[in-house]
């Protein structure tokens, strides 16, 4: 089926080469980082994880969200998701690939990355994260590819795929839970030392991923003859509504615990993020933008008339996505480091090479996504006149 990615309109190729150009710029900058070291980034002794790891953290959520299509379709027989489950699975493949690349570019000694496999260390959450991420990548490639291949031939997928599909459900939950555990179990980092961390991760994942999926569905409808349909998009909209509500609620719990307990260490990161601490306030405008976008999106989502309007829904989904990208793809990781564990404040901001490398990783993700979606959409276009299968 890969050959379907090799033919396309002029616009398709312009997009592909645009991505390749940005990837090229990123690769050049990565080579500079490779020879100079991670000192090329804005990270420091106090803020030892920066933009790379926060992007990884955010994208694990986007990857996990495929389960929001798989569960209704396979467990509850919600037929309307039949046509777009594949879009969720391929989004997961692209996101997990980005996750791995972000971890890779963050390594001080990337040539030694196999040490994680050569010296398996079950007490390290990073070891488990590597296992679940790789597993999830393979599950989604295999499931997506074989179900799409079967669809193309007009036959139901082979029986052996079913257990893998069911396995992918707890697996999706695990990738985000394990990633949350990277943070949640660290002594001395008050901002992350919270039992609702994994729950927050899942709630934000199930809001941000389906939001992106809705936007992607709308784009697919515009640029191809394949229409994902109004109803699946509306159903996704409801999922985003519930998940976003849960996310804001969980964030509220964190605020309550920090401020009602009045424990300085717990309050410092919140002060730093939303009001500034000891004159350091780099993230304040970003965090407020995130909060305002979240509130606006929630108001629009909760109102069914607004949600049913696809233009408003698209705007809402973009708001949710950007809001969560700021909150989880930046604030959560950086905010945990900036007030350091001994009451000092060291700020962080990504440098230009760091930003360009990150952009390139995103572009590689979009390239994978474009190619996979091109294949899926072409197959869907061919089979659109056929009756529903399985």
């Amino acid at each position, binding site marked *: 089926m890969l050959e379907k990615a090799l033919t396309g309109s002029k616009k398709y190729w312009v997009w592909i080469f645009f991505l390749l150009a940005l990837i090229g710029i990123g690769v050049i900058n990565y080579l500079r980082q490779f020879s*100079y070291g991670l*000192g090329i980034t804005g990270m420091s002794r106090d803020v030892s994880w920066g933009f790379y790891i926060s992007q990884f953290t955010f994208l694990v959520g986007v990857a996990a969200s495929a389960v929001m299509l798989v569960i209704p379709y396979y467990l509850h027989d919600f037929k309307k998701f039949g046509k777009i489950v594949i879009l969720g699975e391929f989004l997961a493949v692209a996101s997990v690939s980005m996750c791995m690349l972000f971890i890779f570019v963050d390594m001080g000694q990337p040539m030694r990355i196999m040490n994680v496999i050569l010296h398996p260390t079950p007490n390290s959450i990073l070891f488990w994260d590597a296992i679940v991420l790789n597993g999830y990548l393979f599950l989604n490639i295999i499931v997506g590819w074989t179900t799409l291949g079967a669809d193309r031939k007009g036959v139901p997928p082979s029986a052996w795929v079913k257990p893998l599909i069911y396995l992918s459900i707890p697996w999706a939950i695990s990738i985000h839970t394990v990633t949350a555990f990277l943070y949640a179990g*660290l002594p*001395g980092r008050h901002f992350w030392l919270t039992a609702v961390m994994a729950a927050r991760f899942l709630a934000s994942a199930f809001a941000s991923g389906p939001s992106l999926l809705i936007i992607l569905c709308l784009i697919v409808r515009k640029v191809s003859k394949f229409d994902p349909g109004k109803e699946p998009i509306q159903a996704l909209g409801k999922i985003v509504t519930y998940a976003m509500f849960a996310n804001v609620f969980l964030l509220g719990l964190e605020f309550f615990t920090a401020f009602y307990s009045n424990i300085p260490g717990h309050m410092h990161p919140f002060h730093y993020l939303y009001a500034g601490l000891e004159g350091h306030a780099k993230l304040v405008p970003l965090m407020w933008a995130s909060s305002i976008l979240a509130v606006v999106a929630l108001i629009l989502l909760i109102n069914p008339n607004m949600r049913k309007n696809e233009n408003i829904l698209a705007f809402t989904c973009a708001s949710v996505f950007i809001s969560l990208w700021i909150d989880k793809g930046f604030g959560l990781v950086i905010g945990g480091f900036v007030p350091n564990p001994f*009451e*000092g404040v060291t700020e962080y901001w990504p440098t230009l090479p760091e930003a360009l490398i990150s952009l390139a990783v995103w572009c590689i993700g979009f390239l994978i996504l474009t190619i996979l979606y091109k294949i899926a959409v072409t197959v869907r276009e061919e089979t659109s006149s056929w009756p529903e299968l399985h």
Partner: protein
Amino acid sequence: MSIDRREFLKFAGASTLLGLGGITAVQELLKTSAGASHVMVDEKALSAKRWAMVIDISKFKTEADYKNVVQACHSIHNVPDIGNPKDEVKWIWTDTYEHTFPGQGNEYMPEGLKHKPFLLLCNHCEQPPCVRVCPTKATFKRKDGIVMMDQHRCIGCRFCMAACPFGARSFNWRDPRPFIKEQNPEYPTRTMGVVEKCTFCFERLAKGLQPACVEKSNGGLIFGDLSDPNSEVRKVLSTHYSIRRKPEIGTQPSVYYIIGGSENA
């Protein structure tokens, strides 16, 4: 090439079975391999069940007292002086009371103590979070309690830095070698992209020497075996009130601080 005893025996057994026969040759070889499998240990080497350090801050009076200690460590361990806080590498350094013991200060404490520098280094915790999180066992704890770094195995993920509640770890954000003023050929330099920290001078203990900082501290730093009731550290700890950094998080640091009373004010 290294081959461990068990693998060697398997090989020997297999070759005997195969009729290659050389059992006596195998025994001959075993003698040498048995000899070589033991690491040479210096007879003078210092050993302990639980190494610990006591920092008596009343003994640190002038800026030079601190400087001597820090310099002794940094010069023999080839710690680079990069000159900016962003890329900084440090094994032992000073900070204020407020930063050393967060949440344990108050505005009415003795003025002298408020502004007195405190020496900070890796705490060699009994329950080290850095060891727990390391995905490659590049950070590990020795039997004698020293939390060690294998810089050749470190992949530079910096999980240990996120996990350490004491900020005891430095990362080589860039090649450190151009920033080493005078290289000590007896201790390895590090490369960019790995984490490093104080190792309680394990290499000096192996030669029967005290840690470099202790040697230069004029009695301000006391080093010894916490499990030995007759050791100097135990004697000092049993006669002075001491505190440790962040006891509430349960890592059980092996570095103790004797704050002293009015003599520090």
